[in-house]
């Protein structure tokens, strides 16, 4: 896999400052995509220069992964003093002052006392923001790959599966299928032939950046989870399927795989046992539907990325027709902690039938957007108001959208609902992969439905008629409603069409496409009717079109 074009630029960056002796402070500079886009690489270089120029030998500077509070980057964390510095400037003078603050433990915010961090429980993200994403040694020094060593040297594959089953972990890609059950199925499939382990990193929901952050912050943790899975199900080959829009992710993954192989933690004779596991990265070409597992497998095989009818499920006949375990990034990233600390420990976190923690990309009309990890069962209100700091600008929260284009909008009055798979479904949404968009009263819910329908329409793979043509017509109907040109008959037709597309489409993308329509109709039907009966948009978003010369007339 060749390096992306931007790779050589990386070489120009400063080397981390890692003093030999004891340090008073280590500046952990966030190098995940969010902070990088705000210039954290320049902050890092300048910090290194200032520290070296000052001649001190008790301050270190290093790169780490996502520190969470993405909206306020560039972020620098000083773990020695439990402090986080937001919006760190790249001005040398200001940096000199900051270095003094780092050393003395002043300024910034105290991480353990800050509500954004205090309510979080980090399992998937436990190494994010503390290990260098580009150094396998750093991950190993923090206890990384201990779980894989333990699995391959002390446990049988059956015991590994049993541990995962006991943890109660469910697929974090969206559907929530029990992970242990899936592993057990793949483990039993096939008769000594090839098997594959595939990581679905084709994250495509609008506003979602969980998988990206995990892979850019601690790729080794995902690789370790995949290797443990491979050992458990009897696979020796695997693929990570990443979207091409994540060049940094691709680069860090490739680098991580090479480094892990060199360290004997991937490849042949892992941890000096007979177990081997070879991994390759496959890059998607920008189709949302390739996040659907059968489309993803087709794409890896070099075919057109369209879903096929199931059964057979990939667990029985997947990649190249062989039994294939396919999980998403967050699922694999949860595995090493489960093996280290036991399935029972993991199962003690969470609520109801949803155990453990879930990572969310908190975005939209919320004071502190960013990447968070919370125990299952925390309420949406706690997430939005305690962790997220509420809605900015004196606005009130109107709804929270979860689950991406296949999800739904949960109204403010239901925010006390616990976040778990079943509760979200009963409220008309889904857990999804972890996108969470907060909306205030300046958001028009019909416009939101139109936006997501537009997304589904453009991303339809075109294979089945309900999704390909149905989303186009639903989008037109929503557009008519937003423009004030629709009648009640149009609304009825929208509902009838939505029911058909949901029930008759071939894959989850089509089946989920009408879900935002259903959830907004369930909770915000008055907004639809205001557009239709009174030609007004209560949120003041939609512009009413003049009546057409030859309108529907009906």
């Amino acid at each position, binding site marked *: 896999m060749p390096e992306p074009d931007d790779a050589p630029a990386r070489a120009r960056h400063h080397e981390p400052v890692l003093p030999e002796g004891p340090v008073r402070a280590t500046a952990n500079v966030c190098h995940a995509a969010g902070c990088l886009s705000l210039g954290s690489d320049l902050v890092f270089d300048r910090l290194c220069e200032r520290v070296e120029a000052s001649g001190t030998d008790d301050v270190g500077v290093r790169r780490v992964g996502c520190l969470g509070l993405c909206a306020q980057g560039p972020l620098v964390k000083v773990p020695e003093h439990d402090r986080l510095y937001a919006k760190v400037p790249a001005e040398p003078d200001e940096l000199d002052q900051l270095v003094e603050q780092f050393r003395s433990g002043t300024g910034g915010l105290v991480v353990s006392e800050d509500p954004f961090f205090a309510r979080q429980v980090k399992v998937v993200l436990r190494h994010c923001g503390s290990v260098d994403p580009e150094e396998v040694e750093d991950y190993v020094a923090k206890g990384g790959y201990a779980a894989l060593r333990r699995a391959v040297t002390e446990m049988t594959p059956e015991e590994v599966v049993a541990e995962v089953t006991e943890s109660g972990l469910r697929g974090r890609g969206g559907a929530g299928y029990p992970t242990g059950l899936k592993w057990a199925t793949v483990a039993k499939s096939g008769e000594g032939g090839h098997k594959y382990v595939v990581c679905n990193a084709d994250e495509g929901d609008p506003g979602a950046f969980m998988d990206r952050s995990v892979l850019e912050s601690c790729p080794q943790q995902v690789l370790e989870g995949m290797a443990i899975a491979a050992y458990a199900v009897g696979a020796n080959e695997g693929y990570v399927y990443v979207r091409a829009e994540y060049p940094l992710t691709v680069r860090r993954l490739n680098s991580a795989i090479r480094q892990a192989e060199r360290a004997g933690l991937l490849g042949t004779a892992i941890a000096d046992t007979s177990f081997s596991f070879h991994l390759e990265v496959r890059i998607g070409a920008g189709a949302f539907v390739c996040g659907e597992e059968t489309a993803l497998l087709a794409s890896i095989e070099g075919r057109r990325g369209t879903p096929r009818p199931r059964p057979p499920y990939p667990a029985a006949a997947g990649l190249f027709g062989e039994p294939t375990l396919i999980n998403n990034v967050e699922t694999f990233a949860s595995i090493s902690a489960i093996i280290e600390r036991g399935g029972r420990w993991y199962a003690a976190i969470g609520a109801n039938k949803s155990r453990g923690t879930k990572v969310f990309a908190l975005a939209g009309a919320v004071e502190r957007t960013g990447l968070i990890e919370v125990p299952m069962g925390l309420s949406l209100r706690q997430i939005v108001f305690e962790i997220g700091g509420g809605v900015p600008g004196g606005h009130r929260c109107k709804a929270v959208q979860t689950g991406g284009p296949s999800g739904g909008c949960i109204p403010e009055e239901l925010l006390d609902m616990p976040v778990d798979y079943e509760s979200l479904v009963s409220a008309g949404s889904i857990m999804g992969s972890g996108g969470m968009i907060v909306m205030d009263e300046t958001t028009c819910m019909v416009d939101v439905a139109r936006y997501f329908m537009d997304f589904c329409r453009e991303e339809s793979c075109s294979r089945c008629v309900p999704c390909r043509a149905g989303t186009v017509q639903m989008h037109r109907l929503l557009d008519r409603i937003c423009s004030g040109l629709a009648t009640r008959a149009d609304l009825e037709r929208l509902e009838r069409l939505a029911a058909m597309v949901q029930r008759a489409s071939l894959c989850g993308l089509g089946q989920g496409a009408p879900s935002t329509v259903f959830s907004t109709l369930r909770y915000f039907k008055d907004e639809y009717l205001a557009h239709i009966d009174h030609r007004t948009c209560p949120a003041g978003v939609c512009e009413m079109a003049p009546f057409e010369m030859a309108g529907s*007339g009906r």
Partner: protein
Amino acid sequence: MAKPRLATIWLDGCSGCHMSFLDLDERLFDVFARAELVYGPLVDAKEFPEDVDVTLVEGAVSTEDDLRRVREVRAKTKILVSLGDCAVTANVPGMRNPLGPKAILETAYASGVTGASAAPSEWVPALLERVQPVHAVVPVDVYLPGCPPSADVIAEAIDQLLAGQLPDTAHLASFG
């Protein structure tokens, strides 16, 4: 009891549906024994009359004039029948929709002919942006697809309509 009042109009179509109506041949005597034909290309009437019981509409809605006429017809008719594929789906007239009226006029009056240089701007009604089926602009009670619907199909539908029933055309006619 007065005889039911029947009308036909011809919008954007080829008149094939009217020809098919004429193909009722001797059955036309039965029709006119039971109904009075008060308006249409086959009658000499200038204004669309009030209180029409059944109007058969041939053709799609292509011009501002079509639109005005079909709205008037709707307002003055109890049962409006979309007769033939043009009225039901826009059919052949609708084939200009992917191109738009400007390109059509340009080809028909300027680039495609000798001796003329521009599309007429008066005497002929302006083209609508899109050709629409009748039910896209006014409510329709009965759909009778076909290009054209056969005389038998029209006879059957008229028979039921004059008997005061709405014919079940799903089992009578088909497209094309």
